[in-house]
């Protein structure tokens, strides 16, 4: 019975391809990083940072260039989870947790639902516009400018320390009480918006029926 479903084989293909690509990309990088670490050129933290960066950037590049919508969404998961790891490197566990909960648990599911609902039939969909070279130029220019700004700037004396959970909570719910309330308005609005847009067809239908 399950053999008739196309799903498992397709999943196998995704997992095998993804795994192969992952091993081929990550393997050499891992080896290089571990070698550098052995030679004491970089610290353990930096090894983790570079690994996470590769995941983040690789996922992002895949998400904006793959032609399959679902693959794009899945690559976004890699990016966002990698970003959570970056937050850990930045000593903010709380935000890493929030990132995983909100994005992994909410946003990704929402995006995939969106894909399912809008791509129900297999229309040939145009994914990329004709202005790809232009887009590439602009993207490369932005990358170049901001990387240069980050590297050339002198950020002065830097100190980093861990923000304890209780302090973060005090700051968030004490000093930032008003923003929290405004965000409540915002969620209210987003909820209303999702409702009025989703409810529309039914609403119109019931009105017609009433007439």
């Amino acid at each position, binding site marked *: 019975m399950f053999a008739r479903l196309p799903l498992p084989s397709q999943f196998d293909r995704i997992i095998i391809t993804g795994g192969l690509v992952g091993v081929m990309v990550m393997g050499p990088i891992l080896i290089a990083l571990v070698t550098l670490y052995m030679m004491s050129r970089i610290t353990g933290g930096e090894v983790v940072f570079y690994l996470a960066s590769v995941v983040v950037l690789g996922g992002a590049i895949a*998400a*904006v260039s793959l032609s399959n919508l679902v693959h794009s969404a899945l690559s976004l998961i890699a990016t966002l989870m990698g*970003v959570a790891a970056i937050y850990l490197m*930045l000593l903010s566990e709380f935000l890493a947790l929030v990132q995983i909960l909100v994005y992994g648990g909410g946003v990704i599911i929402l995006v995939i639902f969106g*894909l399912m609902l809008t791509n129900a039939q297999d*229309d040939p969909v145009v994914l990329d516009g004709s202005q790809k070279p232009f*887009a590439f130029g602009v993207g490369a220019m932005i990358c170049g400018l901001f990387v240069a700004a980050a*590297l050339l700037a002198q950020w002065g004396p830097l100190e980093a320390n861990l923000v304890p959970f209780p302090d973060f909570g005090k700051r968030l719910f004490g000093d*930032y009480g008003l923003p929290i309330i405004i965000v409540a308005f915002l969620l209210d609005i987003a909820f209303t918006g999702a*409702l009025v847009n989703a409810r529309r067809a039914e609403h119109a239908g019931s009105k017609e029926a009433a007439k």
Partner: protein
Amino acid sequence: MIPLQNFLVLSALLFGIGFYGVLARRSAILILISVEIMLAAVAINFIAFATYRDPKAFSGLVFALFVIAVAAAEVGLALGIVLRLFRERRTANVDEASSLKW
């Protein structure tokens, strides 16, 4: 300690990639995904600056939290509108929705 520049370079690259996606993609949902990538870059920047340059007040950490919340709400809102457009036109591509000229 990992230098601040590393995080800033990562976030700059991420922002550029997201911007490329916004310009190159035609599917509304893929544009949304690209915007999420840009917002992730923003959050990295805020947290990096909060940790390294503002460790006493860490307003950037709070800011990043709000950015995450707003981004999530925005996805919900935008997907609602995408679904509605899809119901009306059977398309989720921005260039096929062109009864209004750009």
